[in-house]
């Protein structure tokens, strides 16, 4: 209870309080109308205020080479004329300026690159293709000359793969020999015989993990040769590719089943049959992380884990395919068939080959280097072509002949080295100018320490791209998703084929003596009525039903024989 107090009421008394109403006429009144132009972009401090222009003794920074700028360009800028609202136009202009600035800075920073690319300089009279490995060995420094070496091994045809930083080499043989080593220092990590045939091998995201596709299942080993996993979901695998940014191990098996294994969580990201039959020609497109398969009918198909049909298909040869290779920028694809031809395709625009070569025999393998040299393996000869995509190369840049037949070869990243897996072992040859001289240590670092590797692994895992983002155009994610006219009309059409709502007819309380059937009918009738109303409205929207008004053809007495559907 609140105590009731004695309260004084000022308004009861006649005493006047100072009243201010009379002065209101003089007061300024501001009327605020808000329109779009009143909204303004967030204030930011102007960093580089423009100085008055004129001739000065200090012209500023040196201009950047146009070609270098072009190299670092991410495409054309935005046309600000199309943007109607001044606010957005200003905002986008500001963003555009930042992009231009970044491009310029990237181009300028090229001056800081320390290493020089490899090359061969000869007289005009001598073709570079006659230069053998012995000549190269005599003309280069001793440290580089150790990169030419040969391993004679006994366990049948070998496949070789380099790790992503180009420091480690993995060998797997048909007869079960599996070896991993640092090929620069020649330090062996492990060497085991799995006592089964090995069909393909692959490094995983770090050099401590190896995947081997054995006779039955896929096995994962660490760099000491200890078996970590046996993935029984992936059986009889023929070829594997590792997608480093997605942490996916893509594989195709004998029966045409394609599997994408997410090796970071051990789950299968995609698994389906490609309905192409047995295919042992597989490669990945590093530009968009799709997987390319070549089948025995000469068709190259491009696959992603989430779509069960090929993203694109192209008939490249009329004979079975023997090899496919895609260059680093995802611009050109080289294919070869049993018909001894090799074609270069523009992979983003799949009509007609850019180049068509005839070779002496059908290639065993194809491979692009980081600097877009193409290695072609013909039985026991490896030919390397330079600049063969844009123009027709007349003769190979280099040739290397061996007394053994080739199974596969890989260019070593960030080195001028081509590693060739043969039926009698492995040989490493030098191809000057094939590798990228300057590596980016935050991307892949050949001189990585253990600690750096661990740190990079964590960062890479944080930046793992989900498998759903594998599409033909990797920049699709940056675009605005606007439904097309077609999709809008489809959505409207779907309205027509709405199913009437499902209604739960069982009442909550059983009513004694009342006929349920009648109630059900009423509910049903109401629901149907609603559905009909909806569809009528939808039809109105689409203007369907005009054909019903068309005059029907009359046959007089014979009308009765006209079938009902025609009559309509």
């Amino acid at each position, binding site marked *: 209870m609140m105590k009731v107090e004695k309260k004084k009421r000022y308004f009861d008394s006649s005493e006047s309080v100072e009243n201010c109403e009379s002065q209101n006429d003089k007061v*300024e009144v501001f009327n605020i109308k808000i329109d779009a132009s009143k909204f303004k972009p967030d204030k930011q401090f102007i960093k580089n205020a423009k100085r008055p222009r004129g001739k000065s003794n200090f012209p500023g920074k040196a201009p950047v080479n146009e070609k270098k700028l072009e190299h670092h360009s991410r495409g054309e800028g935005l046309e600000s004329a199309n943007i109607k609202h001044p606010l957005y136009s200003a905002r986008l202009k500001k963003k555009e300026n930042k992009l231009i600035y970044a491009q310029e800075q990237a181009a300028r920073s090229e001056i800081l690159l320390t290493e020089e690319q490899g090359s061969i300089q000869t007289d005009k009279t001598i073709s570079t293709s006659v230069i053998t490995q012995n*000549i190269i060995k005599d003309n280069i420094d001793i440290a580089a000359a150790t990169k030419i070496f040969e391993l004679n091994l006994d366990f049948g045809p070998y496949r070789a793969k380099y790790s992503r930083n180009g420091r480690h080499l993995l060998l797997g043989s048909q007869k079960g020999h599996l070896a991993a080593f640092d090929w620069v220092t020649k330090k062996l990590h492990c060497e085991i015989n799995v006592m089964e045939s090995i069909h393909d091998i692959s490094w995983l995201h770090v050099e401590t993990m190896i995947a081997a596709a054995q006779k039955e299942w896929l096995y994962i080993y660490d760099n000491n040769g200890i078996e970590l996993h046996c993935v029984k979901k992936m059986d009889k695998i023929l070829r594997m590719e590792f997608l480093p940014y997605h942490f996916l191990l893509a594989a195709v098996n004998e029966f045409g089943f394609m599997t994408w294994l997410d090796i970071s969580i051990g789950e299968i990201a995609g698994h389906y049959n490609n309905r192409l039959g047995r295919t042992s020609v597989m490669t990945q497109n590093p530009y968009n992380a799709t997987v390319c398969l070549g089948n025995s009918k000469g068709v190259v198909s491009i696959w992603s884990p989430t779509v069960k049909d090929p993203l694109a298909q192209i008939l490249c040869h009329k004979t079975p395919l023997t090899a496919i290779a895609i260059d680093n920028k995802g611009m050109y694809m080289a294919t070869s068939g049993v018909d001894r031809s090799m074609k270069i395709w523009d992979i983003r625009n799949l009509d007609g080959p850019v180049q068509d070569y005839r070779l002496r025999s059908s290639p065993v393998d194809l491979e692009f280097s980081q600097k877009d040299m193409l290695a072609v393996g013909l039985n026991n000869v490896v030919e390397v072509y330079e600049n063969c995509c844009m123009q027709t190369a007349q003769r190979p840049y280099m040739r290397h002949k061996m007394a053994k037949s080739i199974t596969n070869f890989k260019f070593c990243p960030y080195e001028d080295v081509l590693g060739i897996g043969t039926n009698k072992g492995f040989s490493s040859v030098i191809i000057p100018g094939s590798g990228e001289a300057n590596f980016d240590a*935050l991307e892949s670092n050949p001189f990585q320490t253990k600690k750096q590797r661990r740190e990079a692994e964590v960062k890479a895992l944080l930046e793992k*791209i989900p498998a759903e983002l594998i599409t033909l155009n*990797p920049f699709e994610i*940056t675009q605005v998703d606007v439904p097309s006219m077609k999709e809008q009309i489809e959505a409207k059409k779907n309205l027509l084929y709405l199913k009437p709502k499902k209604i739960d007819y069982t009442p909550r309380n059983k009513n004694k003596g009342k006929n349920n059937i009648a109630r059900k009918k009423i509910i049903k009738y109401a629901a149907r009525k609603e559905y009909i109303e909806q569809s009528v409205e939808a039809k109105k929207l689409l203007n369907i039903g005009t054909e019903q008004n068309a005059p029907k053809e009359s046959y007089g007495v014979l009308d009765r024989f006209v079938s009902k559907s025609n009559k309509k």
Partner: protein
Amino acid sequence: MSNIKIKVISRNPEDYLRATKRDIHKLPRNYDPSLHPLEAPREYVRALNAVKLERVFAKPFIGNLDGHRDGVSSLAKHPSRLAVLASGAFDGEIRIWDLAVRKCTRNFVAHEGWVRSLCYTPKGDTFTSVGDDKTIKSWKAEVESPDDEEPINTLLSMSVVTGVTHHRIKPIFATCGEHCQLWENTRNEPVKVFKWGVDSLHHVSFNQVEDNLLASCASDRSIILYDCRESGPLRKVVMELRPNALAWNPMEAFIFTVANEDYNLYTFDVRKLNHPVNIHQDHTSAVIDVDYAPTGREFVSGSYDKTVRIFETLKGHSRDVYHTKRMQRLTCVKWSLDNKYILSGLMK
């Protein structure tokens, strides 16, 4: 074959490895786009992670003060004690809280109907509350004897009082309702009454720097500025929709921000009232209350869309938004005087 020059990549490890263990690792960079494939998806994942991590580690919600049986209608900060908070509810109850231990130290029914508004005196020894029962009551902030539970002073107003605010230095406070009235603590009748038309006022606020200036929000969509030394209103700003609340910038005396019914907040400069200095968008429903941070660089707003947003005074969009699952419509927000916490009162 003598005139052949062959150049091969041959890196000297010494150029790439650190010289001593104390040295930092060498990280040569190359910005060639072909060495950085899948730029767009990687950048997308990075951006997504950054946002997620920021949210994961933010955890802005500290706790709730449990006790009111009805929604909280008004809040008042103690001017000198950080841990003290007064809150009034829709059922007429006032509670005093100790924020450090998050407990209610005192509660009593103050008014019949809503507690419309609360405010502490500058010294912090008493506080004033106004309610729907047309009374203005002053209470002791600290209870030492049972007598202190009763109001020190009760004033009766002629009409409903909806807001109260205290002068920074003088023992004067202003209330609003039908008119804006100025009261002196010792007198039982208003010192001054400011009138403008027939429309009522629902919020009033003293400027804490230029301490004779006060502003009020009227239901005819206008903001009226007064000087308590003058006898009449100074300026009037008519908006397109009703302003709900108003807060003065504690550092820049000429700036105030208005929480508006049209989902926006407007910052005005007293010297140039023709158009707002800035418009703060982002709320998706009417903005109910606004309060400045003691630094004057940021302010917090509470809205009918069940979110609390923090704006920087110079920016048009909010820096942060707070919303929890159990959150209801906001009635009042306060920014604590140590610039660390945000207090919000919700409907029930």
